[in-house]
């Protein structure tokens, strides 16, 4: 399967995951968006030398994925694919920062390694939370939620349109790529000039399609404004979700739970 097909398959798979019915799926989308954003904000506010403090926060993505029936392996695989840029930048930290900060008897750990661990942990937490969000909330509900939160309609409608036509265009693009590949007889790869005309062709066809869509919109009375259907109201349980999780994140940020745990355990031993 080419990379185009697999990417669209992936989006389709996430879409399918988001149409399950679990308690997490039933939470109001706007509430989930806000909770996730606050979660990410709290995670990245941690000091770069404090990877341990991040540990308890893993409860949020884990809870969402478990109750929401989202397969861990799938999310981990996506995280792995998305990690190269972050990890390569983060890899400089151990190289540049050699100051020993942790003495484990046999060897000492430098500040760079600690900060690397922190960045890696932050990545897993933030990207994981983001993927968990989309996996348990349909994209169009997210767009309605955004528009209720004040994001300009022009932008949310644009998001919906792009999402809608990604599959159509993906298919057109992959058909073209396949047709070219079948006539290439083992020659190495797609050259730039051919690529230019392929994209050019797709572009012209796409612009024609846009015109037809516009025609179809006009035929159904379109007058410049797209009125998207109003979504359901927020319930008490949604409020508790937001308040509860946000409270937990704030507490974990303010009070160093792992440190306390470590001390208590130290005392026991």
């Amino acid at each position, binding site marked *: 399967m080419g990379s185009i097909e697999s990417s669209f398959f992936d989006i389709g798979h996430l879409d399918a995951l988001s149409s399950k019915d679990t308690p997490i799926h039933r939470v109001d989308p706007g509430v989930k968006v806000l909770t996730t954003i606050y979660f990410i904000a709290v995670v990245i506010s941690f000091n770069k030398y404090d990877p341990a403090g991040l540990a308890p926060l893993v409860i949020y993505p884990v809870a969402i994925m478990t109750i929401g029936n989202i397969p861990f392996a799938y999310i981990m695989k996506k995280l792995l694919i998305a990690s190269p840029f972050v990890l390569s930048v983060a890899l400089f930290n151990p190289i540049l920062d050699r100051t020993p900060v942790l003495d484990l008897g046999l060897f000492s750990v430098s500040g760079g390694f600690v900060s690397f661990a922190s960045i890696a942990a932050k990545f897993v937490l933030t990207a994981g939370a983001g993927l968990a969000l989309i996996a348990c909330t349909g994209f169009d509900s997210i767009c309605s939620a955004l528009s209720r939160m004040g994001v300009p309609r022009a932008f949310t409608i644009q998001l919906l349109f792009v999402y*809608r036509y990604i599959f159509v265009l993906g298919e057109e693009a992959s058909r073209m790529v396949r047709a070219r590949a079948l006539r290439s007889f083992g020659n190495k790869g797609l050259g730039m000039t051919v690529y230019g005309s392929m994209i050019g062709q797709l572009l012209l066809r796409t612009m024609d399609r846009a015109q037809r869509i516009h025609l*179809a919109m006009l035929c159904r*009375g379109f007058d410049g404004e797209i009125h998207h259907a109003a979504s359901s109201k927020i319930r008490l349980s949604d409020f508790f979700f937001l308040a509860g999780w946000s409270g937990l994140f704030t507490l974990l940020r303010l009070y160093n739970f792992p440190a306390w745990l470590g001390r208590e355990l130290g005392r026991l031993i």
Partner: protein
Amino acid sequence: MSHHIVEVKGLKFSYPDGTPALNGVNFRITHGESVALVGANGAGKSTLLLHLNGYLTPQEGSVRIGDMPITKKTLKQIRQTVGMVFQDPDDQLFLPRVYDDVAFGPTNLGLPPDEVKQRTLSALALVGAGHLKDRPPYKLSAGEKRAVSIATVLSMSPSILVMDEPTSNLDPKARRQLIHLLSEFDHTKIIATHDMDMVLDLCSRAIVLRGGEVVADGTARDILNNRDLLDASGLEKPLRLQGCPICGNSDAR
């Protein structure tokens, strides 16, 4: 009732780049008629259809829907009366869920939410797609997409249904279901098509276009049996009328 009449007089139209498309088209379609518009590719069928809801304006001649001329002011009403379904359903289904697309028309007409909901659900029921209302369009089969795109227009309660190649890209079963569905509508139907067998099943009247002009306008039966006319217009008789390849009966006349 006069508001179901489609009257085209002396319609002439050329594209901005000079290509002549329609060269004096005349016809009159009355309430409840089921008319097929046939012709080879490039004969002008799609161009003619686009005049029926005011998307294109005639350079000469006129188009009247009921007792209304097509002007800027009457456009909204015309487009509610004349429901147009296009060849590629992907061009008509542009919202996230089927329900949204079918509700688009009535919402734009300014109807109250309850009315919109009722119309949407009944339009979907009419085409047998009620169970698809929460699906995203990319997950529909070709037949389902076609049915839903018809629903998007039905929800506006048009009196006249105009369709461009409705059976293209459908597998035999889906095609049969569509023909059955259309036969149950009592709207005035104007269908541009190559599918001569569908014309035989569905339409009482046929208009043949060639080179932007009407070369024949009569009962479907007569026209579909006229081999020479069809041949000259780039068409063929319906397969059912072409004689049996197995038992060898020649073309019935």
